[in-house]
């Protein structure tokens, strides 16, 4: 049984600057989503127990080929990439169709893992969309995953409690950011990553029709106005005085 881990390339959020309330994305390097790395780690841990392959799946622009090396270094066996400039910034419905179609081309998939939300948009819809497209059961917000033969036992952490589901394979699961601590690849692993097998497709290699999909239109995307005093105070006494003057204590 193989495990597919869907990973999204996002701009490195730490490096985004705001100018005139607008995010400046030029020159910001790409990275893999933080929680996607937890999904990868969960896959690698399961594979170490029961065999099979971990296949990292990503759809995006050409840079993804470079970005995904990090996942190959951190334990993925192969990469399956759909690269196309049209996929840059594509919304959830497009991405889901591309990923689902790619998964159809991968053999013996028992488990498809996502992070609970992408690092940039955190919308959490692509995993659910892929499950619907593939007609598979799903379980989001997993804090643990156990595989037994043809089924999985998944603990999902909800606001009011932990729900433990038994689901037959194949299943789509999204994991929480605290399900594990992703490993840091060694230098040798990083050097070897480039030599791992990679299947690279373009959009036109997939039999999907992306026209007529609903569209998300963006009216504006601005940083909120912040206007903080940023006053340095030298002592606790001074802090208390300031807070009293503000009338908040």
């Amino acid at each position: 049984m193989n495990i597919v881990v869907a990973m999204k390339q996002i701009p490195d959020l730490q490096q985004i600057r705001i100018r005139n309330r607008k995010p400046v994305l030029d020159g910001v390097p790409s990275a893999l989503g933080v929680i996607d790395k937890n999904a990868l780690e969960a896959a690698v841990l399961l594979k170490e127990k029961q065999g099979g392959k971990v296949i990292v799946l990503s759809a995006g622009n050409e840079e993804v080929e470079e970005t995904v090396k990090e996942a190959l270094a951190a334990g993925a066996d192969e990469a399956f990439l759909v690269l196309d400039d049209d996929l840059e910034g594509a919304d959830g419905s497009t991405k889901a169709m591309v990923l689902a179609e790619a998964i159809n081309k991968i053999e013996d998939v028992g488990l498809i893992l996502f992070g609970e939300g992408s690092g940039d948009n955190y919308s959490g819809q692509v995993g659910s969309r892929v499950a619907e497209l593939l007609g598979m059961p799903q379980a989001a917000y997993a804090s643990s995953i156990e595989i037994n033969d043809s089924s999985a036992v998944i603990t999902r952490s909800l606001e009011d409690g932990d729900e433990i589901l038994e689901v037959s394979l194949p299943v789509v699961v999204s994991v929480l950011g605290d399900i594990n601590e992703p490993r840091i690849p060694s230098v040798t692993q990083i050097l070897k990553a480039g030599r791992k097998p990679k299947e690279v497709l373009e959009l036109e290699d997939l039999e999907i029709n992306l026209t007529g999909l609903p569209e998300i239109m963006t009216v504006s995307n601005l940083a909120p106005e912040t206007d903080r005093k940023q006053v340095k105070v030298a002592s606790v006494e001074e802090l208390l005085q300031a807070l009293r003057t503000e009338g908040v204590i």
Partner: protein
Amino acid sequence: MAGVLVYSANQGLALELITAARKIEDFVVAVSLNDDSLAQALAAAGVRTFKISNPNLVVGDTGAAAAAIKQVLDKENIDTVLLSSDRRGKELAGRLAQAIGAGCLTDVTAIQVDGSKIECQRNALGGATIAVQYIEGPKVMALRPRSYEAAGAGNGSIEELAAEIKDTGIKVIDFKPKAADRVNIEAAEILVAVGQGLSDEEKLADVQALASKLGGEVACSKPVATDKKWLSEERVIGLSGKKCKPQLALLLGISGQVQFTVGIRDARVIAAVNTDENAAINYMADYIIQADLHDVIEELNEKL
């Protein structure tokens, strides 16, 4: 547009969705899945409620919930759906959107109707920006809890609807309720929030003492709850936690990454305590004290 459908498995959130839906259209329908008391509450809030009962509608089977709701949408010819952006609701949003060929926005904090557009506000780029977006075509929008008041009483109705649901074999083996932490940090006027700068769990008692003296609540950054498990997730401020607007936020040992600050930037006054004078949080603060938070807590507890 021929009406708006609302659904949440959580009764309180379902009532909030009714209020939001009425901003869009007068004609609002609601759904309850294997839940009589939810159906009654929805009808009592004045909406036409479709009650679907089916043994294959297992709680936790998101695909089955989406299939059931789709049948109501098809029958009533509705293509606008509001869901709650709690975890169940968010999970359902993508699945239902895919099932009905809709665009989807989750974690929406406010909606504004502009002609035929339903403009949704949501955080983007990890919370660094606020995006205003709308969906062209069928739409599924999931609203953050407590973005709208619960709908008041009205005269609704309940109709039973037979829906076809496949048995997918999903079984709920167990449900372990979390020890209820009934704190509502979103309503607090004063928040004392701790981050990973806090040295150990025992020190929380001093933090709690300080919060009590100030008449506020203890809150935290995400890792304090999810990694260290020192406090409940109810107390997390930020993108995946709560969005708070206290009069005063005292932030202790929090670095100020954007996924955190998005939850506190509406505070009136922010004071930050950090040993690092270049911590990002300092750019978000009104008052900055470069010091060890444990000393500051001790001194505040003495002086207050």
